């Protein structure tokens, strides 16, 4: 192994109280494909952003090819031979491929020569790496896979020797992903160094030489890919955290409250995010949907709760259909007893500029209890808010305080109190404890169990595997928009981790 292409020594980066990168040391040998894996929020993207000049590290040193290098802006990174393919492509959509490639690397004030140069250079790169792209095509008319190729070409055109790819297969079909891997291998053979950030272990095993695992802002291990296993990596990724076990008795499931059949949901770009998903939730049980973020869970619950239109499929609530492909409306569903704690409480579940009591009626503001004719019954609203503040121990106990002034945990309790106290038959909960302090987590978990024991059907979505495991009576695993397996709560972390990472072998073995 030759000299290291990149060395990171003692990198630290904090955002306020969040220590996103903690004493990171990493050595990436030249001419290799190096994988960096970790759960969402483990600090991978922050680390790569530091390397590409988006953020500056609070402390630590970066060496490129052995030379200590200061990277303050993307320009510095480009000059040091580092190129990056962002998860969300940095392309101008109504530009041609050529225009995108020369943007920022035009060379001179007039475009004519630089375009001609880019055209011949592109031709060379195409032949060398098998990166075929029509240079005059307009970006928005190209499939995502090709757009990504343009991003790679952009980096190569700038003379990148080190290429960072951030979750490159997230938006690709399996065939496109395979093609990408062939390209990456070819690049490696030409002597380029590639850093692959992903949470998909299958990809790591398929093409990397070495792999580093990050967890909670620290670099926990680096292995040679040949000498490690998916099981080991999964365990390193998830770690052996203190399990927040919740006291709960056995579930006593009743009739089916919520039935989802062959649901298909696409996002704004038309990418299928939920692909033919079917499952049901019974009264008195908690069904957890496990999965790495971005595998369709968000779109799934948005479609069920009437926020997002589904393309096809049916959903039955208490045996009666919800018009998920047509007119389903969150207000109507609330009336029918479906409550929803959304994943994003800052922008969806709450209006942060509102007073606490105003948020305690969001979505239920047309309920007669809160109205006097067409006027809001302010006293009733505030009294109601106060009783929820008492019941859920929301602090500070001030229903007139602006919601933005509450801590994350207390904000979440405001949402939970609102949704649970409506006595719904079905409760959909997204990321109930994201950004919530430990004390509040326990409280929230106990409440969810209590809901279950009252005979409610609870559908839980969380990227925290622990949470899913400790709360759920049944666990459904989603990967790439599909349900790839169902397990009982006794399933091991490793087993679930493999499913979440899209390792099909296990599935096949069953």
């Amino acid at each position, binding site marked *: 192994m030759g000299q290291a292409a990149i060395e990171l020594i003692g990198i630290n980066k904090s955002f306020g109280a969040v220590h996103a990168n903690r004493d990171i040391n990493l050595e990436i040998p030249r001419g290799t494909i190096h994988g960096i894996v970790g759960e969402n929020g483990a600090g991978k993207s922050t680390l790569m952003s530091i390397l590409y000049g988006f953020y500056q590290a609070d402390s630590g040193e970066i060496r490129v090819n052995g030379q200590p290098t200061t990277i303050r802006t993307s*320009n510095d990174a480009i000059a040091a031979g580092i190129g990056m393919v962002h998860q969300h492509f940095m392309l101008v*959509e109504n530009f041609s491929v050529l225009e995108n490639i020369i943007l*920022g690397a035009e060379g001179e004030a007039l475009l004519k020569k630089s375009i001609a140069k880019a055209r011949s250079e592109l031709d060379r790169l195409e032949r060398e790496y098998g990166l075929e792209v029509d240079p005059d095509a307009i970006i928005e008319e190209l499939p995502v896979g090709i757009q990504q190729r343009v991003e790679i070409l952009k980096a190569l055109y700038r003379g990148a020797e080190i290429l960072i790819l951030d979750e490159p297969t997230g938006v690709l079909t399996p065939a496109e992903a395979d093609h990408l891997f062939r390209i990456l291998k070819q690049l490696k053979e030409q002597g380029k160094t590639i850093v692959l950030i992903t949470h998909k272990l299958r990809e790591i095993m398929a093409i990397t030489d070495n792999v580093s695992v990050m967890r909670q802002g620290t670099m926990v291990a680096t292995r040679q890919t040949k000498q490690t296993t998916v099981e080991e990596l999964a365990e390193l990724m998830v770690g052996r955290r203190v399990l927040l076990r919740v006291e709960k008795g056995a579930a006593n499931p009743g009739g089916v409250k919520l039935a989802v059949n062959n649901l298909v949901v696409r996002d704004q770009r038309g990418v299928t995010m939920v692909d033919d998903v079917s499952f049901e939730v019974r009264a008195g049980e908690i069904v957890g949907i496990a999965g790495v973020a971005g595998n369709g869970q968000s779109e799934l619950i948005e479609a069920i709760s009437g926020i997002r239109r589904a393309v096809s499929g049916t959903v039955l609530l208490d045996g009666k259909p919800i018009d998920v492909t047509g007119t389903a409306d969150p207000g109507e569903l609330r009336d029918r007893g479906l409550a929803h704690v959304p994943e994003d409480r800052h922008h969806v579940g709450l209006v942060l500029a509102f007073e606490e009591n105003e948020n305690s009626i969001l979505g239920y503001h047309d309920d007669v209890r809160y109205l006097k004719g067409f006027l809001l019954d302010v006293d009733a609203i505030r009294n109601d808010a106060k009783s929820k503040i008492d019941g859920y121990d929301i602090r500070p106990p001030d229903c007139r305080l602006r919601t933005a002034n509450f801590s994350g945990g207390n904000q979440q309790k405001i949402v939970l109190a609102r949704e649970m106290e409506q006595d719904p038959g079905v409760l959909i909960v997204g990321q109930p404890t994201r950004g919530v302090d430990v004390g509040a987590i326990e409280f929230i978990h106990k409440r969810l169990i209590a809901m279950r024991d009252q005979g409610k059907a609870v559908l839980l979505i969380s990227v925290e595997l622990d949470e899913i495991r400790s709360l759920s009576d049944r666990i459904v695993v989603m990967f790439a928009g599909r349900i790839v397996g169902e397990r009982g709560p006794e399933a091991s972390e490793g087993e679930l981790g493999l499913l979440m990472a899209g390792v099909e072998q296990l599935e096949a073995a069953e």
Partner: protein
Amino acid sequence: MDIFNAVIQTLDSTLRLSVPLLLACLAGLYSERSGIFDIGLEGKMLVGAFAGAAAASVFHSAFIGLGMAILISIAFAMIHGFASITHRGNQIVSGVAINFIAAGSTVILGQAWFHQGGRTPALSEGERFSSITLPGANAVKDVPVIGQLYSELLSGHSLIAYIAFAMVPITWWVLYRTRFGLRLRAVGENPAAVDTAGISVTWLRYRALLCTGVLTGLAGAYLSMTQNGGFVKDMTAGKGYIALAALIFAKWKPVNAMFACLLFGFLDALAIRLQGTPLPIIGKVPVQFMQALPYILTVVLLAGFIGKAIPPRAGGVPYVKER
């Protein structure tokens, strides 16, 4: 022959009336293509008109006047930049503010300096841009049709008018054939792409506004130093907004902009010409209808009933570096 003369005269006034629109429209094009909405075109034209006429009459030079018009107009463009780029303020609000400050200050300063009720002194020969007779125009004057077209329609406009029409191919060339143009178009669509390519979004947008300032200055100078021999209170009279409408109508493209401005200028010329004259079939067309037509057409276009006007995608949104 009478009809022919009438047509030539209408077309000639069409050209004259479209010049300020065209300059302002191209000015808006630079700004909006870079992602900065600019409803302050009106105000920048107005201060340009005032500064131009004021300086020209004080220094007895049309060119000093023009220089001043451009300078002051740029200064106002920079205020817009300071509010909307540096401080990420609301671009619409900032534009409205600029229009007010311009409307008030031109009159106040004009009155204080020249004591003519907000007007500037009438400009004499060397202080304004007189019409340029193109070479040979007098010689071919009597050649029917072609000669007349050349000598009466194309010849006899001021320097600024010729600059305005020259700016169309120049702007096209800048936009599509230069590095600056490439980046300008990119930053209005996806500033993050520009930023990750190692280009400063802020500096790029300020440069776009600089171009806007130059062109609105020219537009203002045309109003007060060519069309009119001096500055008159509120002399832009909504031209900045018509230019904005033309820009939308042109779908933010330079050559289209020229045709849109010519169309709107033509409507204006026709309105003046037809005042009181009944048309065959349609009968008498109210002059107000002709005046409102550019706005009505723009609303119809915006509503997506005739084609679709898609503004630069990043328009109106302050760029915040974020990942």
